[in-house]
């Protein structure tokens, strides 16, 4: 046994042990720390709901929900388990039950709505230069037709170009028997409009779902106008559709008696309350509300400005505000919001209110000069700008400070998304809704386990009968292979779906193929009269490229499938690809190790390969 062999043996053994370590939590079935956290948080929310229930009926429902929740405790991990990685293979929605939605945001509508607004703006800028004109959006397009009447053609064009540099001039057309200048948005601007519409939809949905307390929701954008939403554990599609289909609630509320309640005081209040209640670092809004009960005035509540931590995939509380419970204005009064730039090139947000909104806003700002107003979207504070003066005309500019221009611009864009969330719901259409009940999921898991066991028994039994001792070695490799596949899935935090299980089963059948190729080669070499040792060496050498070629091509189809498929089918492609990698490794390296040990280490002269 040379050093090379020991090195390979050592690495394989270590790899195997590491794989097993990665499977500890999956096999144990314990809840990961994140899951425990989520479970506790949900419990606190339900307790808060129970405590705040007004009448007997609401109390009964809250109690029922809480009991349901408590009857399903998360399995706690023993203390020694913390020495192992807590990554687990998670079950797909088709196995654990839940709702999978694919939504399409009608971003075309967002551009059309912008065209509607800008037709008004064009008429306005022309009027400022004493040019009379009318403008409309051309039906079913986002193009704007400007009817000039007697106004001067070239002067009008120059004014529009100068004042609103967002358009491409498409030429002069006759529309409804009248001459019209036709404009379209420049590509960049239209793209920006579409992007904002999608972002805004995601924001809205995330807010809704966070509020709803779904344990591990997944919300992702897909392509230019799609959103994928996965809600494990829910089984009422109508409720889910209501949840994501509704518009977010945008509110404008004054901060509560700022002179008495400074930012520092509010912050200190929250910190003390968190400490006294022993909430630790991760607590829910509902838990905090309980802890703060009696410590804040009845007419006010503590709301947070939150940022979304992309790494931890969760919202982080940044700053608490004591906000008055009185809602002064809601999103319905906002007509439009956009990012604009002032004469010093600093970005700010321009917000336009409708006529009712303008009236309310005028009085609100007049009464509260110097005070701050919180912009609240679904109970989260986006920002709290202060009124510098009375704002009479229904058009407000919100300045976001003079920091790093890039950061200010990003903040401005975020604020626009928030302001429009209440004002302009881009229509969301549900393209695909797959709801799987718990029973079907459980059936799937059971069927998957049985099928895997039977497939293993058949394949391993066949190999043993056909190839005897060598078959046994191949079987070791297949078993190891399954451990590797599962460990890799756990390590990547991959999701196991029913087709994914099918992929593993298929891999069992196909994984022995590499060994079959090798063994058949070895048999051929033995048949030609070569020694055992030479036959094994030749068998492996000649089979290596065949195996690689065959598996690379299969891998290509796996990759195509991965990029095409969605949901469960993606799970199948992942297990198939992972299985190909691990089976090539076990067949070429692991079985070789054992054969080399037998021929070199033990010096055997005859090979049990079923001939």
């Amino acid at each position: 046994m040379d050093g090379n062999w020991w090195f390979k043996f050592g690495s394989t053994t270590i790899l195997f042990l590491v794989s097993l370590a990665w499977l500890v939590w999956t096999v144990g079935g314990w809840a990961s720390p994140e899951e425990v956290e989520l479970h506790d948080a949900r419990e606190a929310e339900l307790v808060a709901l129970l405590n705040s229930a007004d009448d007997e009926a609401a109390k009964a429902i809250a109690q029922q929900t809480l009991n349901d929740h408590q009857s399903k405790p998360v399995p706690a991990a023993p203390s020694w388990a913390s020495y192992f990685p807590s990554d687990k293979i998670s079950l797909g929605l088709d196995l654990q039950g839940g709702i999978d939605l694919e939504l399409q945001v009608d971003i075309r509508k967002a551009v059309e709505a912008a065209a509607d607004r800008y037709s008004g703006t064009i008429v306005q800028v022309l009027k400022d230069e004493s040019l009379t004109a009318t403008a409309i959006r051309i039906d079913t397009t986002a193009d704007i037709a400007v009817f000039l009447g007697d106004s001067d053609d070239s002067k009008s064009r120059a004014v529009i170009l100068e004042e609103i540099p967002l358009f491409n001039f498409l030429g002069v057309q006759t529309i409804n028997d009248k001459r019209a200048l036709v404009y379209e948005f420049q590509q960049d601007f239209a793209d920006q409009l579409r992007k904002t519409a999608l972002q805004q939809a995601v924001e809205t949905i995330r807010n809704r779902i966070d509020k709803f307390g779904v344990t591990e929701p997944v919300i992702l954008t897909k392509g230019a106008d799609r959103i994928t939403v996965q809600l494990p554990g829910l089984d009422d599609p109508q409720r889910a559709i209501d949840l994501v289909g509704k518009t977010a609630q945008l509110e404008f509320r004054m901060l509560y008696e700022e002179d008495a309640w400074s930012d520092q005081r509010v912050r200190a209040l929250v910190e003390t309350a968190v400490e006294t209640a022993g909430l630790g670092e991760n607590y829910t809004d509902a838990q905090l509300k309980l802890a703060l009960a009696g410590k804040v005035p009845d007419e006010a509540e503590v709301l947070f400005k939150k940022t979304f931590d992309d790494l931890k995939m969760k919202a982080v509380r940044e700053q608490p505000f004591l906000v008055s419970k009185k809602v002064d204005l809601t999103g319905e009064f906002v007509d439009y919001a956009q990012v604009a730039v002032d004469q010093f090139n600093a970005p700010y947000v321009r917000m336009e209110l409708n006529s009712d909104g303008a009236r309310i806003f005028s009085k609100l700002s007049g009464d509260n000069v110097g005070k701050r107003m919180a912009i609240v979207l679904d109970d989260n504070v986006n920002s709290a700008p202060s009124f510098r003066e009375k704002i009479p005309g229904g058009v407000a500019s919100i300045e976001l400070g003079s920091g790093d221009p890039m950061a200010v611009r990003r903040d401005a864009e975020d604020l626009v998304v928030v302001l429009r969330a209440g004002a302009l719901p881009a229509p969301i259409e549900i393209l695909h809704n797959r709801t799987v009940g718990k029973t079907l999921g459980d059936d799937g898991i059971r069927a998957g386990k049985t099928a895997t066991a039977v497939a293993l028994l058949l394949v391993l039994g066949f190999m043993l009968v056909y190839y005897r001792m060598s078959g046994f070695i191949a079987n070791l490799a297949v078993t190891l292979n399954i451990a590797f596949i599962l460990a890799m899935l756990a390590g990547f935090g991959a999701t196991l779906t029913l087709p994914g299980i099918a992929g593993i089963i298929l891999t069992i059948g196909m994984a022995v193929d590499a060994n079959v190729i090798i063994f058949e080669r070895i048999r051929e070499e033995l048949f030609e009269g070569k020694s055992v040792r030479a036959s094994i060496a030749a068998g492996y050498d000649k089979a290596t490229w065949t195996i690689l070629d065959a598996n690379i091509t299969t891998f290509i189809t796996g990759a195509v499938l991965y990029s095409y498929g969605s949901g469960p089918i993606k799970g199948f492609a992942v297990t198939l690809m992972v299985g190909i990698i691990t089976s090539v490794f076990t067949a070429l390296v692991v079985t070789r190790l054992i054969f080399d040990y037998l021929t070199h280490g033990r010096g055997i002269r005859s090979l049990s390969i079923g001939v």
Partner: protein
Amino acid sequence: MQFIKPGSNYDFVGKRRFAAIGSAIAVTVAFLIAVVGSFVDTPVSPKYGVDFAGGTEILIKVADGVTIEQLRAGLGEVGLSDDSVQRFGGSGLEYKVRVESVNYGANEFFETVESTLKADYGEDTWVRFEWDPEQSIKMSAKATRTISPAEVQGKLTALNPDVTVEESKVEHNALIVSFPGVTDAVKGTLSGALGANQFEVLSVEMVGPSVGAELRRQGLLSIVFALALILVYVAFRFDLSFAPGAVAALGHDVAITIAVFCLLGREFTLPTIGALLTIVGYSLNDTIVVYDRIRENLIRYPRRDLGDVVNVSLNETLSRTVLTSITTLGAVGALMAFGGPIIADFSLALAIGVLVGTYSSIFVASPMILFLQKWLPVEVPVLDEEEPELRAR
């Protein structure tokens, strides 16, 4: 144990004309079934699952003793035809309810709502009623004055107890009326016909019509894309003359699997596309092993006739081809027998594919090289490492 003894010498190449005729007929028939069947409605036309065709599919499990006639009677009350219920799975208690559109019954409902509201409030009160007949489950009703949603909801509950009415967030004086949806309608009528505890909804899948068409197109494209990539890989690793054979064999397998699926009346779903791509991978695996041997033997026997070389190679790899088919079929068989109803069609497609794929790697892929000799002659590869080199340092 040995199924195929070493030194076997079956004359595969000699029978290639029979095989070619057989395969050509099979592929033509398959093509006719798939393509003609798509345009003309025949009993063997391709049937698409809900993910490709759009609509709603509800899987339910009924209690012992509930008959399909009872189900049909219940669903008939909401206007669903007898064909919309099908048994699936082996237990005899699971049924599939298929509804063509996602907003089944919504149009009629909205029309009734429109006439009801016009009658109750007067025609002049309403500016317009709007919904998309293809897929809307919500309608908007714009009035000349503010009307309380609760009041309207009160009037509409007589039509359907689950209807909801709310104020529009975007328009003044507009109301949004939501149709309760197919799932609720099906649940409601079955509760009435069977009793609420006599059935359980296992899963619901709703797909908009535009997605179905898009998925179908993408599915087809993905298979074509996979074949193109494989063509490139094989041409690069082996020889250009080998590539068409490999791709022909794969196309052959996919076409025949699709046709068998049509003949058996099975539905095409997303997992079926997954199975077809897997078949492509599997069949290719087989073909590559044979090609590898042909390439090796071309070097080994440079003077022998190409047909001989191909035949010898096929024989040498025959044992492996058969064995791998056995183990894979064993695994797929286990999946078919025990994997449950949800992936039954998926495993069936795999099983068909493995059988056809084994055949095609022997009778389609390799003989194709001989057939193409005239246009794409095989270049005998030379292994460079066997030639000693002398170089000046």
